[in-house]
C-alpha cells in the first residue's frame, strides 16, 4: 500500500498557506517538520480536558494526566523497540539528550581517555563531547568520511582502542543525508566494550528505529523533527547504564525522600526527570509517532526515496550544480552548491518564490568546511512533499541562478 499524499497533505494545515504570495513549498524538514492536525488537536484536547500536574496527585485529573503521560512513555518505548518504558527519559530534545549523557560521563572519562565522534556530526553531538574532553583532558577523535560522505569503516576499526570511552555518531547526517551503518558500528564498539550513543534526530521521521536491534547504549531524538511538538524529545538509555549513572538535575518527581542533610532518589525513569514534565509535549509526540506508524514508516521511506531520487536526478542535470553527499545509503536530505553563487542568495530568491530551504552550515560547520565550503543549500523532504513540489523547486532554482549569474 502506498501513501495517498494528496489526502495526507490535508492533515497539515500550514501547507495550505501562502508565502510571499506563492503556495508554500516546505523543504526545510530537517530543521523542523510541520505538524498534522492529529498532533495539534491532541495538545488542544489535553489543555481542554485533561490538564493537570502528574504523579502523586490523588484527584481525578492528576490521575488522568499521569496515566496518559505514562502510557505515552510506553508507546515511545515500543515504537523504538526499547526493552522497557524505564529506558525512556523525556528531555527537551536531541541536544539536551546528548548533553545529559556527556555530563553523566564526566566521571567515567579521564585524562588521556578518548571520545570518538564522526566527521559529519551536528554541533549538538560534537560540542558537548569536545567540551567534556577539554574539561577532562581527554582526546576527541574524529572518524573521517570519504568524498561521498560515507563513514570510513576501516578507519573506525583502527580508531576504537582500549582508550576509547564513548563513541557518538549520527544515525543520519543532517547535511549529507548519509545513513550510517550504526548496527555494524555498534558491533565494532561492543567488542571492546565501548558504549555507543546514536544521534537519531534525522532518523526517527524517516527510518524504522530499533534500539534493541541496533544494540546501542543511548539513542537521542527530538519530537519536532518527526511531526511532533517543539520542546520535547527522548533519551533512550540501556537500563544498566541508567541505573549506574547519577541524576542530572535535581528537584520535583526525581527525589524519593528529602531532608536538609540528605536526599534519596526515585527509580527509573523518574531519576532523570526533574521538575514538572512537559505532559502536553509528550502527548503530542505520542500522537506524532502514532501518525507515522499509521502511515507506515516503510511507505514513508519509499515515498521520500522517490522524492530524493527525482530531485537528485533533476539537479544532476542542471548546470553548475554540485551535490554534496552522495552516499549509497541516503535519505530525505539533498545538499548542494551552485558554482559561483552564494547559498544565501539562492535561499533568499527561492523564498520569494515560496520555496523554503535552509542555507549555510546547518549547525554542522566542520563537515561543510571539510568539503571546502562555507555553506550549502539544503532541501530536505517530509512525508507530505510531492514530486510536483520538486518541480516547482527546481524551476525556481533555475530562475534564481539565472538572475544571480
Amino acid at each position, binding site marked *: 500500500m502506498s501513501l495517498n499524499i494528496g489526502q495526507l497533505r490535508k492533515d497539515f494545515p500550514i501547507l495550505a498557506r501562502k508565502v510571499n504570495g506563492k503556495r508554500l513549498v516546505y523543504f526545510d524538514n530537517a530543521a523542523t517538520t510541520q505538524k498534522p492536525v492529529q498532533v495539534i488537536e491532541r495538545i488542544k484536547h489535553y489543555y481542554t480536558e485533561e490538564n493537570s500536574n*502528574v*504523579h*502523586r*496527585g*490523588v484527584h*481525578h485529573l*492528576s*490521575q488522568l494526566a*499521569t*496515566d496518559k503521560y*505514562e502510557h505515552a512513555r510506553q508507546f515511545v518505548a515500543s515504537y523504538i523497540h526499547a526493552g522497557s518504558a524505564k529506558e525512556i527519559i523525556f528531555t527537551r530534545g536531541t541536544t539536551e539528550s546528548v548533553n545529559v549523557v556527556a555530563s553523566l560521563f564526566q566521571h567515567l572519562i579521564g585524562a588521556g581517555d578518548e571520545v570518538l565522534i564522526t566527521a559529519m556530526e551536528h554541533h549538538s553531538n560534537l560540542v558537548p563531547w569536545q567540551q567534556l574532553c577539554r574539561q577532562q583532558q581527554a582526546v576527541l577523535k574524529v572518524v573521517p568520511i570519504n568524498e561521498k560522505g560515507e563513514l570510513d569503516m576501516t578507519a573506525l576499526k583502527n580508531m576504537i582502542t582500549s582508550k576509547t570511552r564513548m563513541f557518538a555518531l549520527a544515525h543520519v547526517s543532517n547535511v549529507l543525508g548519509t545513513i550510517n551503518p550504526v548496527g555494524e558500528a555498534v558491533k565494532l564498539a561492543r567488542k571492546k566494550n565501548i558504549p555507543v550513543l546514536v544521534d537519531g534526530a534525522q532518523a526517527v521521521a524517516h527510518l524504522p528505529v530499533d534500539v534493541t536491534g541496533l544494540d546501542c547504549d543511548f539513542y537521542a531524538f527530538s519530537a519536532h523533527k518527526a511531526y511532533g511538538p517543539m520542546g520535547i524529545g527522548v533519551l533512550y538509555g540501556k537500563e544498566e547504564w541508567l541505573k549506574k549513572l547519577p541524576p542530572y538535575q535535581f528537584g520535583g518527581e526525581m527525589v*524519593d525522600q528529602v531532608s536538609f542533610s540528605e536526599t534519596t532518589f526515585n527509580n527509573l525513569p523518574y531519576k532523570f526527570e526533574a521538575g514538572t514534565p512537559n505532559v502536553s509535549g509528550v502527548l503530542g509526540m505520542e500522537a506524532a509517532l502514532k501518525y507515522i506508524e499509521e502511515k507506515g514508516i516503510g511507505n514513508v521511506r519509499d515515498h521520500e526515496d522517490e522524492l530524493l531520487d527525482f530531485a537528485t536526478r533533476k539537479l544532476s542535470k542542471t548546470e553548475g550544480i554540485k551535490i554534496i553527499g552522495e552516499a549509497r545509503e541516503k535519505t530525505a536530505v539533498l545538499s548542494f552548491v551552485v558554482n559561483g553563487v552564494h547559498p544565501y542568495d539562492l535561499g533568499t530568491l527561492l523564498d520569494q518564490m515560496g520555496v523554503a530551504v535552509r542555507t549555510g552550515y546547518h549547525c554542522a560547520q566542520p563537515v561543510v568546511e571539510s568539503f571546502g565550503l562555507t555553506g550549502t543549500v539544503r532541501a530536505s523532504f517530509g512525508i507530505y512533499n510531492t514530486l510536483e513540489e520538486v518541480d516547482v523547486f527546481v524551476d525556481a532554482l533555475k530562475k534564481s541562478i539565472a538572475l544571480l549569474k
Partner: protein
Amino acid sequence: MTIQEKQQAVIEEFSIFEDWLDKYAYLIELGKELPLIDEKYKTNQFLISGCQSRVWMHAELKDGKMIITADSDAVITKGIVSLLTRVFSGFSPDEILEADFVFLNTIGLKDHLSPTRANGLQSMMKQIKLYAKVFQLKSNKKSE
C-alpha cells in the same frame, strides 16, 4: 474458596452499593476493622514505597499457605489493603502467583487500579507476588 471465588464474593458484596458514597463508607468500615499488623512489622523494612499513605505489609508461610497482614495510616488505603489480604491471604505461593487481580476493577474502584495511582496499589500487588515468589523459591530449594 479459591482466590477466584473470593474475588467473586467481594464483587457481589460491592454490587449492592448504588453510589460511590456507600462504597467508600463500606471501604472505610473495612479499613477500621482490618486486623492490625503486628506492631513489630510497622517499620521501614516493611513499608511499601510508591504510596502517598504509608502501607506496611508482612507475609509468612504457615503450612504451605501465605498469611498476609497489612496496615496503612490512611483508612481508605487500609480498606483496600483489607480487601487484598482477605482475597489473597491463606493461599499457597503457587496459587497467588497464578492469580490475576481483577476484582477492584469490577467493584467500581477502577481508578484505584491504575499503575500510576498515588495509593500504590500496583506496588502492593507487586509486593504480594514478590513474597509469593520468594516463598516458592525457598520451598523449591528445600524439596531439591
